[in-house]
């Protein structure tokens, strides 16, 4: 099944007198990897919250594969095949790494509601969970509680959870934030692999990562789209340089 494209039309989000997202239009063709970049406070994470349903839009529409998802709850959007990772690691503290993935798999299979201890269901998920963990190189930490993981490995678990849902649209919120060089390379390889057959939208600050992965880049500043295009053309756009370095930068 072909992944859907993502379209955003005139999206606005207001916060008590502050307009965080100011009429953003985006078109992300199916199966592409699209990077969202911009200086701090540009509205990237707010945009992500809007796309994943954590914030209601003040105006505008969001369409996934032609289907209007504006105003849907996060869990409804998730069930449509849109998975998202978080910028601030949101994991379930004492629960073990493999149990996290098992839960995600169970959720996807729709058995999350089973009250009674269904050991059979859980063990069948375990082997698939281990495969998913192997994809992010976490198979050796399967039994570790999530809050004992080093930061870089937590982000990897985040990614594993998003993958376990087998989404058609993947929203990655700063997947390499806070990582060391080795972790970053690993993550870049992983994203390059898993993007096949999916539409990926990625917020990133690390321009090397964007250069390696993105098909197209959208630059946001002050809640508006400043520029859009391939990485190289966007990078040399004078408006973009100004936005990052501040107007009046002499060189």
């Amino acid at each position, binding site marked *: 099944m072909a992944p859907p494209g993502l379209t955003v039309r005139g999206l606005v989000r207001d*916060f*008590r007198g*502050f307009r*965080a997202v100011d009429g953003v239009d985006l078109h992300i063709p199916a199966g592409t990897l699209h990077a969202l970049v911009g200086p*701090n*406070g540009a*509205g*990237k*994470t*707010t945009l992500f*919250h809007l796309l*994943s*349903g*954590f*914030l209601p839009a003040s105006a505008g529409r969001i369409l996934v594969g032609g289907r209007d998802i504006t105003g849907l*709850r*996060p*869990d*409804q959007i*998730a*069930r449509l095949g849109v*998975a*998202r990772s*978080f*910028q*601030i*690691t*949101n*994991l*379930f*503290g*004492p*629960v073990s790494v493999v*149990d996290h993935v*098992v*839960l*995600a798999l*169970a*959720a*996807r299979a729709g*058995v*999350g*509601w*089973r*009250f*009674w*201890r*269904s050991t059979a*269901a*859980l063990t069948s998920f375990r082997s698939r969970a281990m495969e998913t963990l192997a994809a992010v190189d976490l198979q050796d930490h399967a039994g570790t509680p999530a*809050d004992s993981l080093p930061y870089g490995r937590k982000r990897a678990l985040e990614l594993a*959870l998003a993958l376990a*849902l087998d989404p058609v649209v993947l929203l990655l919120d700063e997947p390499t*934030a*806070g990582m060391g060089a080795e972790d970053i390379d690993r993550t870049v390889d992983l994203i390059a692999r898993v993007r096949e057959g999916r539409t990926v939208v990625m917020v990133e600050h690390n321009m090397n990562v964007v250069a390696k992965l993105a098909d197209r880049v959208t630059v946001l500043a002050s809640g508006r789209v400043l520029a859009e295009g391939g990485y190289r053309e966007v990078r040399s756009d004078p408006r973009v340089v100004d936005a990052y370095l501040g107007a009046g930068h002499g060189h």
Partner: protein
Amino acid sequence: MKRWWRRLTPVAVAVLAAIIPYSTVRIPGAFPDPLNAPGTLQILALCLVFAGIAMSYDLLFGRTGLLSFGHALYVGIGAYGATLMVNQWHLPLWTSAVIVIAVSAVVSLLLGSVALRTTGVAFAMVTLAFAEVGSILVARDPGGVTGGEEGLALDGSRLPAALVGVTNTANLYWLALGFAVVAIVVVHRIDASPYGRVLTGLRDDERRVAVLGFSPFRVKLVTLVLSGALAGAGGVVYALVVGGASPRATASDLTLSLLVMVVLGGAGTRWGPVLGAVAYTYLNQRLTGVGGLRAVDSLPAVLRNPLSQPQFVIGAVFILAVFFAPKGLSGLRWPDLKRRGRARATAVHVEKDQAGRDGERSSVLAAAGDSTSDVSTL
């Protein structure tokens, strides 16, 4: 080796508990009479009823992170419902029990749908409001039905003969034990199921659970219904053990006691709520006698008066327990006592405060209502 030992111990304890009514052992200081005396069995039965009700409360509080101040409402529905149905409408006991449990479930469904529109402190207040309505309704005694301040005595002639009379206290004890076992088994099975994992997830991070495709509202509502139904069943057994229903079953005091029991024993732990409930109920029942002890009488008035109040002693015990054993009685290990409770679970919050990069993050959290910071800091 260790695993089957752990599995066997609770069964062994349950078996021991079951044979207590046959034992003439005396435990001096703990109980004034031998174990199989009606007085002792009554106290133990009450401990067991509250163990079960505390487990139902912990399903909400410890396992899902929902601080409810209205749990007493369902115990009251159970106690008053069963008493009324048996006394006034002449229904057989078991039918009344089934109806009452169904009513508790429906009421918690309705109230939950309203209360769950809020989170954290607001949720606690809404649940408190509903419980107070129930409490006032009972005290007002509409149509003379609820017996007002004095409550209602269960009409013994309409109960199965095996449950009536002092000589049958052992049967009531076994009934309470049965209820406690059922409540414990239900909650433990939920713990081990996928649904139980979702609950743990909800307690730690609601947004994460939503992203997996679960509606936090629906999951919480189902939990409320389950715990309300269990508490309703507990109310029925409570009425049988105590001999009727009284406003004490619906008072917010009861919910507060449940909260103390659960925190004392260790919220969210396997056996914590049971330990806390047994300890609290036992102390509550037995400490009323402390005031009459000669040792206490000889103390100066400033010490004697507070010590004669069971609630004071319990409160002091609670404070000491929370200080020395913040994870509750069930989390007690010797090194912890020395470390004086510095181990608090704040890791999640430290991480959340760490990343302050994007300027809009704080406004997003403010707008979205940071629902994760409600209970875990208790």
